[in-house]
């Protein structure tokens, strides 16, 4: 009987001699993989932190999803330090972008495996390859959707939030298996050739990794890696040079991006980032990501006739902007931190949420559903927990930097809560309903 595993490899990339780079091999892959893993760890942890920060366990915040067992909530999101979400989400987006070159270099280093022949050696090998397809597919899916989302380009029909979140679970599952299989290989490869020695080797002395190197890395029980070239071309770049090249790609992305999360004078350096500059001059000239136009706010509904409706149980109260300004005013410097990874700290003034809760006689431990004048869109309303209401810096802001809020920044009144994602700091507030979450 013809054994398909004995069939000769078809021509082209299925033949090992087609892969000629002298730099590929388990050592290089191990170095790139280790750096990639540290970046991915930050991205995954801050990503799940963002899920927790959205507090999907509260009232309106789950956006209509039926919670399954992947929608875990291990802890309530804190309000201290106030820059917490600005830091975690700034890291998520910035490290995500900076890690992309490392991901691409890592994939480049192992791409001969995509065409390895025979495609399946055993059941274990076939299943591992299926798992790798999930790993690479979910990784590229997560990077692509994340990078497009921060530029407000959504060329898909699914909900970004759900897809990016559940896609992350697939990625984590496939990565965990990959680590179980590969961490011993990485450890052996890095022991076999020390990083410090390798970084001293210049172009003239750069030699391909050999089958012996591969065998030393994979150990006695597994087939050695097919990434080692069997017919290597002469080196045109040292391994050190390749790592510098990848690093400079990451550095360029860092410089062109990080300023929108760090703020201050660095923001001007973020030449390609979407929130690199102010929208105008004056106290309301700072960045906005949902203008009154995109939220379809009718300016007439924010005029003299506007009232804030407070509700708790059967109690109702309607307050005009003058009524709110007559209440005790408090001022705090707090960041607006967006899920898209940029933030800006401004000086907000207004009424404490806990004063409003007391005014309507809300119960201890109540949550509050905040609804906007905005008619459509997932984030026209948000639920804040008891912890958010209790923080003295949580405000229904009426003014910013000493001036009335502009319409784009939420006039007549907006929520500002320390460490809360920007989309949950509802603008153009129309109604606040206190009660159990």
């Amino acid at each position, binding site marked *: 009987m013809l054994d398909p595993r004995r069939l000769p490899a078809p021509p082209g990339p299925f033949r090992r001699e087609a892969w000629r780079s002298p730099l590929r091999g388990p050592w290089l892959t191990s170095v790139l993989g280790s750096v990639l893993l540290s970046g991915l760890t930050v991205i995954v942890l801050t990503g799940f932190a963002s899920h927790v920060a959205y507090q999907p366990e509260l009232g309106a915040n789950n956006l209509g999803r039926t919670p399954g067992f992947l929608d875990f909530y291990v802890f309530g999101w804190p309000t201290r330090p106030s820059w917490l979400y600005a830091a975690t989400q700034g890291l998520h987006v910035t490290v995500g972008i900076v890690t992309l070159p490392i991901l691409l270099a890592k994939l480049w280093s192992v791409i001969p495996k995509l065409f390895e022949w025979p495609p399946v050696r055993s059941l274990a090998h076939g299943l591992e390859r299926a798992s790798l397809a999930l790993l690479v597919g979910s990784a590229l899916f997560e990077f692509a959707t994340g990078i497009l989302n921060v530029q*407000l380009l959504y060329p898909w029909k699914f909900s970004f939030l759900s897809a990016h979140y559940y896609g992350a679970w697939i990625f984590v599952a496939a990565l965990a298996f990959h680590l179980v299989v590969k961490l011993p290989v990485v450890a052996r490869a890095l022991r076999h050739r020390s990083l410090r020695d390798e970084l001293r080797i210049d172009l003239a002395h750069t030699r391909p990794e050999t089958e012996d190197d591969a065998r030393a890395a994979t150990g006695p029980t597994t087939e050695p890696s097919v990434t080692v070239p069997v017919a290597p071309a002469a080196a045109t770049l040292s391994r050190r040079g390749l790592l510098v090249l990848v690093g400079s790609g990451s550095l360029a992305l860092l410089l062109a991006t990080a300023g929108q999360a760090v703020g201050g004078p660095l923001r001007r350096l973020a030449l390609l980032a979407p929130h690199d500059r102010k929208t105008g001059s004056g106290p309301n000239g700072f960045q906005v990501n949902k203008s009154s136009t995109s939220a379809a706010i009718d300016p007439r509904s924010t005029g003299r006739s506007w009232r804030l409706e407070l509700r708790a149980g059967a109690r109702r109260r309607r307050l005009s902007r003058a009524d709110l300004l007559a209440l005790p005013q408090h001022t705090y410097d707090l960041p607006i931190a967006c899920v898209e990874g940029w933030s800006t700290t401004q000086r907000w003034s207004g009424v404490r949420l806990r004063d409003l809760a007391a005014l309507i006689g809300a119960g201890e431990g109540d949550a509050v559903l905040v609804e906007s004048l905005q008619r459509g869109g997932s984030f026209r309303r948000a639920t804040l927990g008891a912890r958010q209401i209790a923080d003295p810096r949580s405000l229904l802001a009426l003014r910013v930097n000493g001036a009335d809020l502009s319409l784009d920044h939420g006039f007549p009144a907006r929520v500002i809560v320390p460490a809360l994602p920007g989309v949950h700091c509802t603008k153009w507030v129309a109604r606040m309903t206190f009660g159990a979450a």
Partner: protein
Amino acid sequence: MNALRRLYGAGPLQLLALVASFALAAAGLSRLLDAGTATRNVALWLIGAVIAHDLVLFPLTALLDRIAGRAPRARGVPAVNYLRVPVLISGLLFLVWFPLILGLSQRRYETATRLSTDVYLPRWLAITGVLFAASALLYAVRLRRAG
């Protein structure tokens, strides 16, 4: 144990870890394919992302690298890395920020942020120009030293 290795092709730890990983991934996949009920669209993006990388982006960069490798050597100094560095950095910046550079989300972005996307293309071109100019300068210095 040896029978497992012979029939299956790996040890029991690999099998256990694989089953656990597939179970969790399946849970994620079932929720993902459910996301916003656009099942086919999600699948398209998952598979499309792999195809875009493995069969478009990778062959394209490999081809570019092969072309760069043919760049003539002047006075024995190869030009290839003086091309690789600016092309790679400029290309990476484009790969990440092309929606802004090309203004693909122009209307939504400008309405939401009150900012214009017009600045990004000139900025990217300027960065690219500076990178190539710096690289050319360094190459000229190398040639002078070699000459």
